[in-house]
């Protein structure tokens, strides 16, 4: 990044030339001016925090929309999960009381887990949930999902790798 007082940085240039345009683009996509402004803001915050922004662009708007699109899909994903979570909570009888902090903590844990397990086939995620959260044995998971125990173990290896070591790059 450039020091203040010298030439404006790439991100500053991107901001001054394309911020309004990006907001408009997001507005058409999200249907809400407020959310569009939020995500446009987040897009530039993300660029400021990144050390991988190229110095020059042939297609600055294509670059911006790629980053913004990623944030938009995170946004939808989060909304979807929050809705599912609230729906699940609505089925909890009133006798069970979680403090707002506990609820928030559970939701944050869910969101992070969902993010880490993203892209895995649904059955692999289910094997993970049954085994790691519900403490089902391998045999039980196999029975629940209608697959063999060796397959359960293979699925678990995949999901556990993602849950525990997503910061490592694997070739496989």
């Amino acid at each position, binding site marked *: 990044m450039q020091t203040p007082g010298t030439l404006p940085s790439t991100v500053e240039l991107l901001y001054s030339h394309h911020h309004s345009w990006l907001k408009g683009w997001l507005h058409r996509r999200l249907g809400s001016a407020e959310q569009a402004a939020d995500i446009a803001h987040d897009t530039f915050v993300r660029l400021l925090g990144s050390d991988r922004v190229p110095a020059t662009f042939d297609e600055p708007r294509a670059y911006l929309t790629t980053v913004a699109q990623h944030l938009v899909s995170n946004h939808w994903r989060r909304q979807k999960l929050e809705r599912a*979570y609230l729906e699940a909570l609505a089925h909890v*009888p009133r006798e*069970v009381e979680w403090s707002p*902090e506990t609820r928030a903590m559970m939701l944050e844990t869910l969101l992070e887990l969902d993010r880490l397990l993203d892209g895995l086939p649904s059955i692999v995620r289910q094997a993970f949930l049954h085994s790691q*959260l519900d403490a*089902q044995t*391998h045999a039980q998971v196999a029975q629940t999902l209608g697959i063999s125990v060796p397959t359960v*173990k293979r699925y678990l290896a995949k999901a556990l790798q993602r849950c*525990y*070591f997503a910061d490592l790059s694997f070739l496989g």
Partner: protein
Amino acid sequence: MPAIRSTWYDATADAATVPAEVAERAVEWLIELQSDDVPPQLIAEWRQWREAHPDHERAWQRIESVKGKLAPLASPVEAGIAQAALAPPASKQRRRAVKTLAVLLFAGSGTWGVWHASPWRRWSADVRTAVGERRTLHLADGTQLVLNTDSAVDIAYREDERRVRLMAGEVLITTAPDTHTPPRPFLVETSQGTARALGTRYTVRQFDDGTHVSVYQGAVEIRPRARPAQSLILRTGMHASYTAHSISDPSDAPAGDAAWAEGFIVARSMRLADFVAELARYSNASLSCDASVANLRVSGTFPLDDVGKVLDTLGTTLAVRTESVTRFWGAREIRLVPA
């Protein structure tokens, strides 16, 4: 697969430098240690592996640390919520998970009593209920036992197994994922044999001439004492009885058999002041706590129908005691003060 960052890894950032094959091996170990029967030999080998290289230990520390991050979701109720929320929308799994949740949270009334021990503690205790009394026990690993009237259990948790001996009466068990590594099997022993939980909720009742088991969720493996090889796995909704020598044919579990479950409050490292404020919603007496103990942390699951007893019980795990004052106009105040 590209590398993904997560705040869950912050505490064990150094694990990101281990070779991929070490991480893969660590995961394999975890899966093996979570298997049904873990021979002592395997545990010894796993310990040796951890000690063999600092990378191995780093990888294992990562697993332990992230496992802790999953804790808010890893008990029967919370796991149900996670299942329901993470399953594809409008799917069969989601509907089933939500249904399971309702079953898990089935609430009755008339229970009292809490036993809550600190995690990792090795302990053994005899607990008995009087005629007409019911009692809920919360064991250190999160397993819940509800003792029905006129019952007695001896709880014997060891390094390699979680065993509950049912001496008399009836008990409802809801097992929790074992926090111990490797997870230990959970067994209920009666004079006729054992009923081993395979991740589950079930009742065991001791009669003079036999033991009756009903399974509400998961599965239970029954082994008659004199014929341990003749085991039977009972699945959700099934009931069977057994003597030391034989097992009856399974039948449907009688409906409403576990209707003596309870209503409770769940605290997870909650500030005492917040916990007391939550409890106060269920109490006619006014509740408060001294500022000097307000920041103590409460963990456990507590029944709501006798708030005074819950407060008294806090004294067994925290350095607090209750002070009860009745005002001249009749209002009762209970205050938690340093013990």
